[in-house]
């Protein structure tokens, strides 16, 4: 079957402004969008820039806008796209580097801001090995451990588009993962960071993040649980 791929192109050393280039491809219904990009690079332009790594929905490298919605190029099949022309654009809200590649540093700066690691200065248990928790305690934050930091959620968020200082859904998901971990002891510190001006209250529940998440994390729910925790002054278990 035939498909036309319409790709956002920008070469910082050659172009003064971005443009769209179209490529006509012979594709299979079960091809992934990533396969189409590979085909364009092989048959038309080896200079086409995009990120990819595992190509199996695990590394989170190839998040991009596909027909106007954020998704991983390696998880979207041609048969899932109803339009004859498939439009591919870079993530919105992060500085553009080249073609479909954006600068992820602002995204990771927000990630680092929420202290994405376990904090517990208490002495080790008597056996000196590990801090145990029950299955129920582990379940409490299981879903938010699934984040792969692809940025599909953060760059689909209207609040993040309007205010780059906003921590964004991905950082908040990470914050949720540690805030609700029974072994963590930094809840007051975390809640202070999350309730700041650039924190959780900028979430306007537009739900784009949850819709875009390739890992099917209930992001808006996690953010709401953080809001409730701030109001209670402790993790709202």
């Amino acid at each position: 079957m035939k498909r036309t791929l319409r790709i956002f192109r920008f070469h910082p050393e050659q172009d003064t402004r971005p443009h769209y280039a179209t490529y006509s491809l012979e594709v299979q219904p079960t091809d992934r969008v990533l396969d189409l990009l590979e085909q364009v690079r092989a048959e038309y332009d080896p200079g086409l820039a995009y990120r990819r790594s595992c190509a199996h929905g695990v590394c989170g490298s190839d998040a991009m806008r596909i027909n106007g919605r954020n998704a991983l190029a390696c998880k979207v099949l041609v048969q899932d796209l109803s339009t004859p022309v498939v439009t591919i654009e870079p993530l919105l809200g992060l500085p553009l580097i080249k073609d479909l590649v954006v600068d992820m540093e602002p995204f990771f700066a927000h990630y680092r801001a929420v202290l994405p690691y376990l904090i517990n200065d208490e002495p080790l248990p008597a056996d000196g090995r590990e801090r145990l928790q029950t299955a129920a305690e582990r379940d409490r934050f299981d879903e938010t451990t699934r984040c792969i930091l692809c940025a599909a959620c953060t760059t689909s968020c209207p609040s993040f588009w309007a205010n780059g200082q906003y921590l964004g859904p991905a950082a908040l998901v990470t914050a949720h993962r540690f805030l609700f971990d029974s072994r963590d002891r930094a809840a007051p510190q975390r809640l202070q960071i999350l309730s700041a001006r650039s924190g959780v209250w900028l979430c306007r529940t537009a739900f784009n993040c949850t819709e875009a998440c390739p890992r099917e994390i209930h992001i808006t729910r996690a953010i709401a649980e953080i809001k409730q925790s701030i109001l209670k002054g402790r993790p709202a278990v």
Partner: protein
Amino acid sequence: MAHLKTALTGYVSYRGREGQWAFLLHRISGLGTGLFLTIHIVDIALVYFAPQLFLEVLQLYRSTLFGIGEIFLVFCVFYHGVNGLRIALFDLKAAQRWNIPTARGSARLVLIIALVLWLPCAVWMLRSLLLHNFGLFQ
């Protein structure tokens, strides 16, 4: 400025679902209501500072254009209020129910409730406008 451009690009081109449309409608209706409240406070203040100007403003309010604007203002108030309740309910009381089906369904329901509340008011206000500005229904 760059963020404004990004935000407008996203609002227009990102193909969000009901949640994004509810977000946008909430923003627009909030801005509309806020703008009206500002104008309303200013015009009422004219009673004290410039009574003659206040009377002229009242004439402006009776114009057809303002009448139509008021009809849409009522929709903005209803929508913003009902959608605000939806968000507060989910965010502060029922976070566990925040999932894609409930978000989509509740956004649609809010629009229906706002329209049901608004339509009788709109008909009544439109009738009043046609009666006073065009002499119909006499």
